[in-house]
């Protein structure tokens, strides 16, 4: 379980996360979950069919809204792109590769946004969508410790990964993390998982 949860923190970067097991390398969430399941560990076995359907639906909601919003903010918002993303994305590579790869990635992301209809969205509209998504997650979570009551599932890992990244990554404007902070139960959820599963690393970045 901690394997899956840990693998999330750098999900935005693309093909990461991946895990090495012996000779095999498995990348990205879906395949990793399947792989771990095949090894006999699964978080969602005790859910019934309707709950599994709900879980998959909420995971798609997070992918659809949060992930796309994160990509938008990183690559389509000029301020963030100029100050942070270009430098960070190109940093492992020598000149001129760093610029070329960064521009190429930006072009790809913009194409994708246009194809799914986000090309014409303004930053405010994107933030509103994120707010709607967080509201839905918050209502679903309610006062329970995890999304499906007592035990965490893949959905908890996915939501934690995204929210933690949003809350702890420094960007030029803090509006995205402010949106998330409006929902106290989501904040408490992140803190609880961080303390419970990551306490040995001594990280306490969520204050």
């Amino acid at each position, binding site marked *: 379980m901690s394997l899956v949860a840990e693998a999330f923190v750098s999900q935005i970067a693309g093909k990461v996360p991946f895990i090495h097991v012996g000779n095999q390398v498995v990348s990205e969430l879906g395949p990793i979950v399947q792989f771990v399941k095949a090894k006999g560990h699964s978080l969602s076995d005790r859910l019934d*069919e*309707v709950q*599994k*359907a*709900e879980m*998959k*639906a*909420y995971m*798609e*909601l997070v*992918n*659809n*809204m949060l992930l796309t919003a994160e990509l938008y903010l990183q690559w389509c918002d000029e301020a963030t792109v100029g100050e942070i993303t270009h430098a960070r994305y190109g940093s492992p590579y020598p000149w001129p590769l760093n610029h070329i790869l960064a521009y*190429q990635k930006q072009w*790809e992301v913009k*194409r*994708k946004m246009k*194809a*799914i*209809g986000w090309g014409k969205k303004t930053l405010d509209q994107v933030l509103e969508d994120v707010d*709607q*998504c967080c*509201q*839905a*997650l918050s*209502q*679903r979570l*309610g006062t329970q410790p995890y999304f499906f009551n007592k035990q965490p599932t893949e959905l908890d890992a996915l939501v934690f990964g995204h929210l933690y990244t949003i809350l702890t990554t420094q960007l030029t404007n803090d509006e995205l993390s402010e949106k998330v902070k409006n929902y106290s139960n989501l904040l408490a959820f992140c803190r609880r998982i961080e303390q419970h599963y990551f306490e040995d690393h001594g990280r306490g970045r969520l204050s």
Partner: protein
Amino acid sequence: MAAPLELSCWGGGWGLPSVHSESLVVMAYAKFSGAPLKVNVIDNTWRGSRGDVPVLATEDNIVSQPAKILNFLRKQKYNADYELSAKQGADTLAYIALLEEKLLPAVLHTFWVESDNYFTVTKPWFASRMPFPLSLILPGRMSKGALNRILLTRGEPPLYHLREVEAQIYRDAKECLNLLSNRLGTSQFFFGDTPCTLDAYVFGFLAPLYKVRFPKVQLQEHLKQLSNLCRFCDDILNSYFRLSLGGISPAGQETIDANLQKLTQLVNKESNLIEKMDDNLRQSPQLPHRKLPTLKLTPAEEESNSLQRLSP
């Protein structure tokens, strides 16, 4: 609220009020929430735009895209989700995301990318509803848009290959259909007894897949096996869309049913008569004797006899 609301959308066929998923979502929502919409079907005159269909026009607003149109209708107090709890509202968002991520790519592929389907069904249908030079350009553009959407959301940069993603998107779509079927179970609608936004979306995506006749039908076959989803589509069509279908009105339907009944009765009577005759023949003692004379016919005569019998 009194201002007339006009919706421009693609027309219908195969028993549907519209074959375009997004148009169907809006039409269904309007029926569920009681919004008085005047539907303008796009035809091959130059009236109206074809860009961002469906488009809702009021006195001072033009709204496009189903999500925005539904939001607008809700603000005008046509709200089909009035009785939903907060959690059900959240579930609605989640399931809509599931539909868009998992089902939509395969539906787009079935309609616009699969060549047999596109060239024999989709392109002629849409081209017949566009004025001349547009009918040559616009369907191709729509097809390319669909392909782009599939590749960019599912393919691997930088060289996007369709073949890699085809199998995956159909697998995902079948799984999504199974999930929807599990969630619907035996209830009439997704949240209780009255339809709401989620029902409109599911109907909008499933009904064209269910009803349109395609040459390549793997996803349709899968859907047809999920009987509760088929029943869901048929229920909505019968309850909310029957009168406006422009085909057969209920009175006409009744006379057809009555005629059918008469015909069935006639056929039954005939078959009863034939059975009785058959029984009589079997019981009659003359039958074995009758067979002997026919055996004496020469092959040529037998052949001419059988030929005579066969001629109309």
